């Protein structure tokens, strides 16, 4: 059935499969980059969540749960903060992916504005989750304003970054016939 592929084709397939994970790793490391651009550097810690959201829309099968878990834990370890919970970002990533996959019907094949709105909601959930757990774990009242500033910045720059990461399938009727589903596997959309 399957044709013996050329080297290029193999590389292409591997590259495609590895792209979401590599992009996520890149943005996890970029979180630490000592960039001093006003506002943009505020949003750096939330960019991995943006990557998770965008690739969950486009190709969730290339962003498996265990990978998200590992990346989230890596992010928490690197970002540090004495006493801060290690694994809260992992929890957030996993939940973002699950929420996107469960709501593909409202997020994929719809106008961009809907995706943006979806991101606004999920990112807010993510920020609240991280803030809540960090406050709980360190048992201190953490000022929520910096976290909210992060949130606002990342929501504003979402339209600038998201289209570069992955193109989500264009607008089409919700009842697409099987052959025109593109790369989406049957069973990927949960009903």
């Amino acid at each position: 059935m399957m044709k013996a592929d050329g080297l290029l084709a193999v590389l292409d397939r591997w590259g495609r499969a590895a792209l979401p994970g590599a992009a996520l790793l890149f943005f996890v490391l970029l979180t630490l980059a000592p960039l001093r651009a006003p506002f943009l550097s505020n949003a750096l810690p939330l960019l991995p969540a943006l990557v998770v959201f965008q690739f969950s829309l486009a190709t969730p099968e290339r962003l498996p749960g265990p990978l998200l878990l590992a990346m989230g834990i890596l992010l928490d370890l690197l970002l540090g903060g004495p006493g801060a919970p290690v694994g809260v970002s992992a929890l957030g990533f996993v939940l973002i992916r699950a929420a996107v996959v469960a709501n593909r019907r409202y997020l994929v094949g719809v106008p961009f504005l809907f995706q943006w709105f979806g991101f606004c909601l999920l990112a807010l959930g993510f920020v609240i989750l991280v803030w809540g757990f960090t406050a709980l774990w360190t048992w201190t009242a953490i000022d929520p304003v910096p976290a909210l500033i992060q949130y606002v910045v990342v929501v504003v720059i979402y339209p600038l970054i998201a289209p570069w990461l992955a193109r989500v399938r264009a607008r089409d009727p919700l009842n697409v016939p099987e052959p025109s589903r593109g790369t989406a596997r049957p069973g990927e959309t949960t009903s």
Partner: protein
Amino acid sequence: MAIRDDFEVAAGQVRAAVQRFALGLLVIAAFGAMLVGKADTVLVEHARVVALDLASPVLEAIARPVAVANRAIADLKEFASLREENARLREENARLLAWQTAARRLENENEGLRDLANFREGPEASFITARIVGDSVSAYVRGALLNVGRKVGVAPGQAVVTGEGLAGRIAEVGDNSSRVLFVTDVNSRLPVLIERTRERAILAGDNSARLRLTLLQSLAGVQRGDRIITSGDGGSFPVGIPVGEVVETGEGHVRVRPFADFSRLEFVRVVDYGVTGLVSSGHSTPSTPPGVAGQRVR
């Protein structure tokens, strides 16, 4: 044929069940990681250090282009106020030259008096210069990653200074990397002196740009413009490193602006004072009383 269909249906159901189960498992794993982190802080510290050492070469590779970008941004900002800046610097230079003369005179006098009094100096401090390769700045933490580690003699608790003043202290050390916790971090507690009155106090961070002066005997003596220096209490820091100046005094609270400009740090110096005081060497077990020597308070 029918058997095969049945099999496929069953396999599909199993797959669906595993998929549904997978989310639960992942959530449990994430919670597990958090609980383990809470229960076994030493393990987490160790994991942090390993992650830091692994990420450090990558960060170092991107530190240079990032520094160039930062400089470009800073240049753009400064361009607007070049003339005023120049005038200000000229004035400051004149003032500093006058101070230099005074300092030379005092140094000579001091030396003479020390000879007379047979004064013994404290341990000599040596410096390790480091490049900042990563920020660990988020809404919850203020710190940075350095490209030096245990191999060149960096140890937890050492002071980190810039040209202007104290930046923070070393919190975690890997083989070739380390993490600084800035004085502005919410976990930072620093024993300090008010230079004019010689009164002792604790300088606490709260993740904002201003520091809080706490545990002060009397607030009345503090004035705006008072310089704050390290007191060396706890033994891990040298005495007299400038930290900041008082910018705001109100009822019950004193605000201090740190001298170090955290928005444009590129290189820092780690002060190796010979003694690391209360910070235990080797394993950095957090078993110190709260509020001592700018150490972490849990």
